[in-house]
């Protein structure tokens, strides 16, 4: 358990504003005048998780064959602000199928369901801080009751790090997709460099030869060593 980490304030512009133009709902949820953070034993500790079932990282192996879509293999590497791997971090991943449809009762849109695709996966980071998922590139989907807003292809990722403060839920995107520039959620992050860091990084070396495109993503959780590390 890591009570030896310190948590610097988040750099200006690196996180989305609670109120975001073009996304009406944010205005009814954004908190007002917040208090300075507490950093007691409560925040510096946090839950640990046991190993989930081993099959959870393969979203494409259906009973009748492979899921439809562009097969991709994603290496998610969980690190802290010192770039130290975070073994044991629980990662949850969820996404739409190739047609932009979720396996979820709240997704009522008329779009094809792929019986061979499971729209969720889960894993514990290994000693290198990595969890590897085999999935497909998700489709774009429209946001209901908006003036033609379509979410760009994206993958939701949730991570539990070493403390209550290091908890993170985010979404990752595909570099170069034209919808990225139009998305109120991605563009809600003010700093362009912080948006760039939400892009999956193509990496042939982690793909499956002639089968699945390879991508890497470094998930950086809050916290660094109290005393600077020697490099």
């Amino acid at each position, binding site marked *: *358990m890591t*009570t030896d980490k310190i948590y610097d304030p*988040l750099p200006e512009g*690196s*996180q*989305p504003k*609670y*109120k*975001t133009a073009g*996304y009406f*709902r*944010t*205005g*009814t*949820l*954004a*908190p*007002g*005048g*917040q*208090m*300075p*953070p507490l*950093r*007691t034993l*409560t*925040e*510096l*500790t*946090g*839950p*640990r998780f046991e190993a989930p079932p081993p099959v959870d990282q393969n979203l494409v192996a259906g009973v009748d064959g492979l899921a439809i879509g562009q097969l991709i293999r994603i290496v998610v590497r969980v*690190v*802290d*602000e*010192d770039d130290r791997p975070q073994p044991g971090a629980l990662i*949850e991943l*969820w996404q739409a199928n190739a047609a932009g449809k979720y396996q*979820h009762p709240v997704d009522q849109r008329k779009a094809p369901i792929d019986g061979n695709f499971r*729209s*969720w996966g889960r894993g514990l980071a290994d000693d290198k801080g990595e969890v590897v998922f085999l999935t497909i590139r998700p489709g774009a989907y429209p946001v209901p009751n908006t003036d033609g807003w379509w979410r760009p292809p994206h993958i*939701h990722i*949730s991570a539990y790090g070493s403390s*209550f*403060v290091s*908890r993170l*839920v*985010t*979404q990752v995107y595909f570099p170069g997709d034209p919808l990225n520039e139009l998305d109120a*959620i*991605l563009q809600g*992050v003010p700093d362009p460099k912080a*948006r760039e*860091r*939400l892009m999956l990084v193509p990496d042939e070396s982690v793909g499956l030869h002639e089968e699945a495109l390879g991508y890497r993503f*470094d998930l*950086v*959780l809050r916290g*660094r060593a109290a005393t600077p590390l020697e*490099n």
Partner: protein
Amino acid sequence: MARIPTASQTLGPFYSYEFMRDDDPVIASPKAAGQHVTLKGRLLDKNGGPVREGLIEVWQADAEGRYSGQDPAADPEVRGFGRSLTDIDGNFAFQTIIPGASSSGGNSLQAPHFAVNVFASGLMRHVTTRIYAPGSDIADSFLDGLPDAAKALMLARGSDGADGKHVLEADIRLGDEGGTPSFEE
């Protein structure tokens, strides 16, 4: 190499039910030491409307103020963590115990409290707040320093539930007018 933490993005409405296990809202087992309670409330928006598909996460100490994984003497029946996905009316609920006073990290103690992270579709980053158990006489420099109105919003209301189990109830109201006080993380 110093790295900048990854930007948060909203939970969205499609966090899979498959992630939720039956024991996710069970923070302390029935065998745990301490006063057993149901900790419950509603997640509300600025207008008082329910927020559904929200994820409420709680982290707390055992009855002696010790945290699981941090203090080897901590009660093994208290996982300390739980999560609950809000229903269509915004309801969340946990089975737990009232935590003991825990260390502030320094020499002073903190009044019994539950640390809370809130995620929801349309909430661009999660919101961090606390729920305090009522009736504590611990001198707490943070809680005692709050204006009365803010303090009232962070204190749970205690009552006896229909099942004979004590209930602590606290709504979490989002929004920038009269909402539950939260921390600028």
